[in-house]
């Protein structure tokens, strides 16, 4: 059950793993003793794949994302990103649940932030920033400030910002989790289209089963505290998909599989 429907497109040899996690554990030291956040995580993600890390709050999935982004070190185990140790770099883009737009910057200046921080000439990037704003449907909003934007629009700006330096890998920490259902769905589809078109590798952290099943090629289901991988569910449906996919029996079967894994019935397999 942990690897259902093996063999169709799990890591074909032509697509070697761009993200490799082997026996990773993370333990935090707290006042009341050590807290084990992640235990014995092993994951491989192929180039161009969209995978979800799905689990309840506190299962350490966001911690895993921070480790992949190189923001915190693992306690033990091995992590490689494109053959290297994880560290913050232009090839890896991290996106959060909050848009985190700086209120003193215009929309355009917010999108340009990554280029500015990597000591690149801002002028070279202005055209690309404007192009990206057009791509996320915010043409004509470049000179506005974030308080003039709705929550969904703010998250679109954050999406344009993370895409600016054209990272190969997108690490998304519940990127649309704070938005209403309809806005989230439309942004999910857009994100999937963008990632599919540009052949990006995406790791999506979420606790929304439908979001994971709609967007992803594979879903890693996590157990609560400490986070372990309860199983992997593969969604065998070509991308980009439309919302119509969510009405198919394939979709509901996969959702049911994920739910079974989440309920913990198969953990002791």
């Amino acid at each position, binding site marked *: 059950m942990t690897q259902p429907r093996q063999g169709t497109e799990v890591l074909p040899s032509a697509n070697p793993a761009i993200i490799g996690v082997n026996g990773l554990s993370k333990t935090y030291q707290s006042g009341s003793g050590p807290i084990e956040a992640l235990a014995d995580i092993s994951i491989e993600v192929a180039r161009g794949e969209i995978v979800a890390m799905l689990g309840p709050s506190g299962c350490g999935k966001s911690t895993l994302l*921070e480790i992949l*982004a*190189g*923001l915190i070190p693992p306690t033990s185990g091995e992590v490689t990103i494109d053959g290297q140790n994880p560290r*913050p*770099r*232009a090839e*890896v*883009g*991290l996106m*959060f649940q*909050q848009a*985190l737009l*700086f*209120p*003193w910057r215009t929309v355009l200046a917010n999108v340009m*932030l*990554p280029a*500015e*921080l*990597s000591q690149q000439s801002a002028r070279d990037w202005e055209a690309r920033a404007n192009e990206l704003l057009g791509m996320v*449907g915010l043409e004509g909003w470049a000179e506005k*400030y974030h*308080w*003039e*934007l*709705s*929550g*969904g*629009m703010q998250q679109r700006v954050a999406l344009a910002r993370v895409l600016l330096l054209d990272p190969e890998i997108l690490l998304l920490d519940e990127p649309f989790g704070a938005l*209403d*259902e*309809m*806005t989230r*769905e*439309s942004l999910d589809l857009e994100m999937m289209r963008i990632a599919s078109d540009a052949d990006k590798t995406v790791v999506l952290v979420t606790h929304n089963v*439908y979001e994971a099943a709609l967007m992803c090629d594979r879903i890693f289901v996590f157990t609560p505290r400490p986070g372990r991988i309860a199983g992997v569910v593969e969604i065998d449906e070509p991308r980009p998909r439309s*919302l*119509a996919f*969510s*009405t198919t029996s394939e979709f*509901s079967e996969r*959702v049911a599989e994920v739910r079974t894994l989440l309920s913990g019935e198969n953990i002791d397999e």
Partner: protein
Amino acid sequence: MSERTATKEPATDSRAAPTPGGDPGWKERAIGPIGAIILAIIIVVIGELLVLNGILNDIIVPRPTDVFTALIATFSEGFFYRHLWVTTLEVLIGFVVGTVLGFALGAFLGVSKRARAISYPYIVAFQGLPKVVLAPVFITIFGFGIESKIVMAIAISFFPVLINTMAGLTGVDPQARRLMRSLNASDWHIFTKLSLPSSLPLIFAGIKTGLTLALVGAIVGEFVGADSGLGYLLDVYSYQLEIPRVWAITTVLAAMGVVLFLFIEWVDRKVVFWQSQRELSTTM
């Protein structure tokens, strides 16, 4: 699942951007200023009547018209401007130096956790100290001239700037910091492009408090021992029982405080423009 069976959801965001509210009309906007002027007239008339009818003794509380006459007389005397200049200089130098010092020290403490831990007991002690008690100390050290008042204004105005700068820098959204780190930002860039701008609203709140306090510091210093300045003049007039003159100088000091405050508030709105805009858009 049932709610997800719709084949196509609207592709646009369900929440539109806030649009500016309608113009409330000039009448609505004029109520504040006009009401304030009417209130001032009522208070002045009541004061005038109370003194005229002998309910208040004009040796203790002067008639508003007497205060006005004294004010005109004061403005026509050359020595008034010398005292005005001295106090203005003390307040401005004290305020500017105090703000710069407060910001520099606050930024250092905001960035260095170790320095913060070491200086914490001293900050608490200094916060609890009523700073005006330092006036005699400074006058003993720096003399009766302008220097002791400047030091007094510095000592009293730098503290709120220090505290607020430190609070602003330590209160930066950790998630925004994480974003900066994921973008490979240097410590310097995290400071200049995130921590500092996001602290500016708090820093300016401290600067506003500091400005008012600089005036307090200079005047208290002049009360305790001086040979010039509006505080000195106030002291002299009250010894001579020139009560309308005392009130006239008090009015000048109040006006000075208001002008300085309005100026800083204007700078605040220009620099921290996003703060007032945000308030505007959430109240609409």
